[in-house]
């Protein structure tokens, strides 16, 4: 059982794994978790697309690293690291459904009750395509090692322990193995590549 209150540091993957490049965050944290070992103070978790349900995972944290696809200007596959002030504009949002990412709202709510994380860093990738069942594009898949390097850098700079596992686990990327879609797109065969 994971106790969502126990770790002061979280590495969170966001995204819908069934929507192509949108699943980048979920995939990257899983590959990272299998290839690297961190201290008990670091929780590594894929949260999918939690909307406002992100709040419990930010509650009272010290450092939060979020890995996600970002809508930004630039070439698909570009990895950028954003400090909270660079990314988040707490501006007006009209919410019709509770599916919208919710990061801004969750942070603002938690800060108001004094339970917001001290620091939020977003490691973002610019996606190429986000369509149902199409898998992650090669361009974005190739950006995974860069994003993992960014996560490691963030952790090490903050004095946190993070080292390569002598025996890496095999990532559980169940959504990537699709018997119907073996047509040269990036799928299972590319996944082991990412564990190095």
């Amino acid at each position, binding site marked *: 059982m994971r106790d*969502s209150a126990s770790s002061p540091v979280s590495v969170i993957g966001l995204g819908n794994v069934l929507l192509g490049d949108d699943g980048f965050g979920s995939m990257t944290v899983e590959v990272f978790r299998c290839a690297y070992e961190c201290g008990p103070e670091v929780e590594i978790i894929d949260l999918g697309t939690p909307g406002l349900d992100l709040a419990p995972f930010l509650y009272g944290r010290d450092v939060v690293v979020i890995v996600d696809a970002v809508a930004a200007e630039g070439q698909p596959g570009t990895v950028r690291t954003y400090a909270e002030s660079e990314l988040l504009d707490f501006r007006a949002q*009209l919410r*019709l*459904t*509770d599916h919208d990412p919710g990061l801004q709202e969750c942070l603002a709510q938690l800060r108001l009750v004094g339970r917001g994380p001290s620091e939020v860093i977003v490691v973002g990738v610019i996606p190429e395509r986000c369509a*149902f069942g199409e898998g992650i594009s090669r361009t974005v898949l190739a950006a995974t090692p860069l994003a993992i390097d960014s996560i490691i850098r963030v952790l090490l700079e903050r004095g946190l322990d993070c080292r390569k596992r002598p025996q890496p686990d095999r990532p559980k990327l169940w959504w990537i193995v699709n018997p119907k879609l073996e047509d040269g797109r990036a799928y299972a065969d590319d996944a082991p590549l990412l564990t190095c």
Partner: protein
Amino acid sequence: MTQRITIDPITRIEGHLRIDVEVDGGSVQKAWASCTMWRGIENILKGRDPREGWVFAQRFCGVCTTVHAMASVRAVEDALQLEIPANAQYIRNLILIGHALHDHIVHFYHLSALDWVDITTIPKADPARAASIADGVSTWPGNSHRELAAVQDKVKGLISSGQLGIFSHGYWGHPAMRLSPEMNLLLFAHYLQALEFQRKSCQVVGILGGKTPHIQNLAVGGVMNAINLNSLATMNMDRLGTLQSLLQDLIPFVQQAYFLDACVLAASYPEWFRYGRGVTNYLAVPDLPVDAKATQFDLPGGVISNGNLASVRTISDWRDQPIRAAVAEDVTHAWYEGEGLQRPWKGKTDPNYTDFREDGKYSWVKAPRYDGAPMQVGPLSNVLVGYASGHLLTRKWTDLAFNRISAMDRGQVQIDDMQSTMGRYLARAIRSAMLSDLALKHWQLLTDNILKGDDATYNPPQFPQHEVVGVGMHEAPRGTLSHWVTVDKGTFSNYQAVVPTTWNASPRDENGVPGPYESSLLGNPVADPGQPLEVLRTVHSFDPCMACACHMLDANGRRIAKVKVL
């Protein structure tokens, strides 16, 4: 003069829900609900192993992960006529209750309260008076003078900084906002306190599900929780104790804060019992089975036609034949191929996109029909079906809500008034109060069963060599969810999910009959077309959840939604 208002979330790359209304003489004359994102999820499941279907299904939707996982395993179990152990039923039920409480709390406070609560009046509130309003009505400790004064200080700080941030969405001071500063303070204090309880309900799901979101303990045939009272690593008395204390922390917030806040809202905005009636056919399926064979349920199911509660037809269990024959989907106005009503077991999900054409195709949501008629699903359907069939727990909390409202000296609310925008808010709170009672009951059922020496949690599935069909039903937070599967030689040959929001956000059908969102908006007042707050109130009363979010953060900080008035 007729004005056309479009509310379209231009979220990141794709939006989800778009509402178009035509307003004339200050009220809505025509309405269209459109889901602007394709949901081709079912096609991904064809050809897969049914034992793993739930892992995919719980990624249908980022918010209601658990419910799809549950409907998926129930569908396969139904196809195989596989019974699951009693422990598995109770563990699943507790997960579903934990998830539902979480979902309802977040909906009320974080998704919709600010349609009714004007935080900019809070600096004018008298915290002592606010505390005295709650005194004698609620035992909730978070209503103290000290607590409320602290919340007021926070709001004052927020407003004086000039950075309202997420709270600056612009409907403050709207003429339709009518709570007193003290009521606004009280409700906003609970909005902030709710964050703590959102976390606790998440932990309930996490303890049983192994992880949340995306529980890991399910299996076709039961659950994978090992039960051994002598082992630290399994479900033991320690873990059951943790679970019980989480529930005991959570329940007072639901019954003494949330439930009463919904009564306050209902008493303060009684005119909203007159708007938003819409489709008055209601569907709810039974849930929370209390025995291994799923013959008895703690939440009743049934069908009500034309708003007539006396017409209720009970759905006594998931093997009910009429519902299996009644559900079909129409795609006349949805962006799919096909004609006429399609049974889910034969259903297809092949896209045929045109632009938004109000007389043609205009949504990615299909139009589900029950014996040809649109149905409203959700907590209101639960409460009406329960009330109509004399279900004691439903009666207890519904009558308590009506008594609370009349004690606030704002007139009488009758069960028929519930068929409205406000009724949907109140019904969700009634359901949450009921689920809180049931959480403790099912915790007790699980504990007693384990103490009796039963540690079974799983019956292995056997797949026949011929085609079998099944349907998995779950009464989810947003209403009736059903997954319809066809299994052939151990793989899915077809998969269709008829989700609650498909029922409620349904477009028109081949006869031009609109769905629940669309018809509930008719006659809805709109004071200022540039600030269609009243439209949002009715749409939010359904708790929209357009399945399958595409999730991207917007580094450019664009507005998430826009209102366009023509």
